[in-house]
């Protein structure tokens, strides 16, 4: 057999331009809204990693948002850790908690896993309600001295919290992107497309899933700490809210496009557009959200981004490997670009 000369391409020229033009939303002036945008973008990116790639449909990620929030208050109030520094610590604490939780919930498959993770989150809610030194069921506010330690003025504090939120979310997206471009990304996409086949191709599916779960839980907790640093107040029902930290996140990922990095980005934009235009409608707002989710699931199961990507071949975050033969014949869809 003749040796073929070839090279591997990781991006098309169009995708590079799109990537460079990506951060167009950065100059939003409504900082609070933008901060919230990045909170949801980060949570949805993590949930997409779990459900979209590893098939771990968790309905209990609010457990880790809550744990992150309570880590902020506990570490700052009891140990005097500066609030800004509790964010990475919250990630570490959540990762440590996620390991034994994974032993429990990974015994369950599919729908049982989903319900199991929700039950675990409710257990954490009840535990937090019993924590009387952190306000028990009624919650607690961050003491004034600690609030001042974040930043001297209110504007300064909001600025710091905003940029830490942006930093954490961008770091999450960059990390997910690097992960998916690596050989491990290939393994995750293989698991997404067929667990048994992935295992037969040498991928240790169980280990990959557990690692991903722990990392996703750590990320959710870091975002949780940031959410409650900007709220300055925490209560068990707010911290462990399945609606706020999981249902909306699932909505975002599903309408945007599950199993693609771009999905949560598009989904978060759509979610905020819908929310800002429909929030005056009261209950109708939630009904419209629900109808939109049902419509997307029925008519575009790969989400809005999946629809666009399939039709136009768009990629904001190219993770694929294109084979380009540099000798005579070239595989289908030749490209003239160079890497």
């Amino acid at each position, binding site marked *: *057999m*003749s*040796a*073929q000369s*070839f090279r*591997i391409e990781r991006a098309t020229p169009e995708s590079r331009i799109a990537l460079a033009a990506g951060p167009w939303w950065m100059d939003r002036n409504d900082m609070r809204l933008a901060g919230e945008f990045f909170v949801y973008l980060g949570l949805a990116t993590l949930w997409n990693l779990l459900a979209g790639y590893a098939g771990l449909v968790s309905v209990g990620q609010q457990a880790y948002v809550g744990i992150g929030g309570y880590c902020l208050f506990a570490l700052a109030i009891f140990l005097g850790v500066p609030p800004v520094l509790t964010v990475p610590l919250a990630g570490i604490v959540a990762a440590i908690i996620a390991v034994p939780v994974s032993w429990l919930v990974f015994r369950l498959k599919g729908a049982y896993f989903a319900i199991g993770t929700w039950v675990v989150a409710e257990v954490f809610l009840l535990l937090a309600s019993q924590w009387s030194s952190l306000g028990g069921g009624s919650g607690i506010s961050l003491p004034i001295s600690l609030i001042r330690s974040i930043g001297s003025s209110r504007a300064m504090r909001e600025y710091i919290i905003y940029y830490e939120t942006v930093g954490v979310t961008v770091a999450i997206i960059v990390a997910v992107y690097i992960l998916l471009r690596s*050989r491990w990304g*290939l*393994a995750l*996409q*293989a698991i*997404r*497309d*067929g667990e*048994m*086949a*992935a*295992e*037969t*191709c*040498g*991928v*240790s*599916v169980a280990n990959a899933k557990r690692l991903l779960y722990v990392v996703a839980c750590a990320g959710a907790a870091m975002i949780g700490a940031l959410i409650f640093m900007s709220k300055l107040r925490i209560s068990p029902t707010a911290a462990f809210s399945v609606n706020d930290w999981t249902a909306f996140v699932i909505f975002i990922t599903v309408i945007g496009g599950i*199993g693609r990095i771009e999905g949560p980005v598009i989904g978060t934009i759509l979610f905020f557009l819908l929310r800002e235009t429909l929030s005056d409608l009261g209950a109708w707002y939630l009904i419209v959200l629900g109808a939109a989710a049902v419509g997307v699931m029925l008519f575009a199961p790969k989400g809005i981004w999946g629809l666009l990507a399939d039709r136009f071949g768009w990629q904001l975050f190219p993770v*694929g*490997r*294109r*084979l380009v*033969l540099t000798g005579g*014949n070239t*595989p*289908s*869809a030749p490209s003239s670009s160079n890497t």
Partner: protein
Amino acid sequence: MAPLLSLKSVSKRFGAVVVADNIDLSLNEGEALGILGPNGAGKTSLFNMIAGVFSPDAGHIYYRGSDITKLTAAQRCRIGIGRSFQIPQPFGGLSVFENLCVTGFFGARGDHATVEARAVEVLDLTGMLPKANALASSLTLLERKRLELARALAGNPKLLLLDEIAGGLTPHECEDLIAAIRKIRATGVSVIWIEHVVHALLAVIDGLFVLNQGAKLAEGDPRTVMDSPEVHEIYLGVEADA
């Protein structure tokens, strides 16, 4: 020297259905073994046990002299057992080339250059090079079967398990497949091939193993086994011309 693969009294049942009844099987390095048997005889279940999809209820599986009965499917892939699925299971969201990279990285554990070069070589061998960048989900059934073979090969297996890859091919395509499998054998890869297309099987194998209702019906030289009365009985009128 220990055989490459040996099964010792392997048994497996699903409820009342016995899929493997005290199977003994041995394959030496470089050999090619064909497996025949009617539908439901337990051929694919045998592959599932060799590849580690599920473990036998009783008995042991040895690979190069060491007991691999307890290893996971991923571990078995890494020690050199490659497998193609009867019902193709491509990674639909990945390109053909990327499908091959999965086994290259995680089965053969190669570095980028080795994995990519091996994938191109295998694509060329299996005639899939023109489809290298096509999404696996866009392939036809026959292309998916070729991808199954290519993906298993990209992991540099020492033992290749092929599960019905010749069905539905035109005579010309079948010739190409036989030539490809001969080339694979020439590189020192041992093969176990489950196939209903008997003439393709006989063109490649040195030994034949016939299963019926989970039990060994006959084993030995392919021609002798095919001419034996037991095999005639279960295959009479089905593959009589082969």
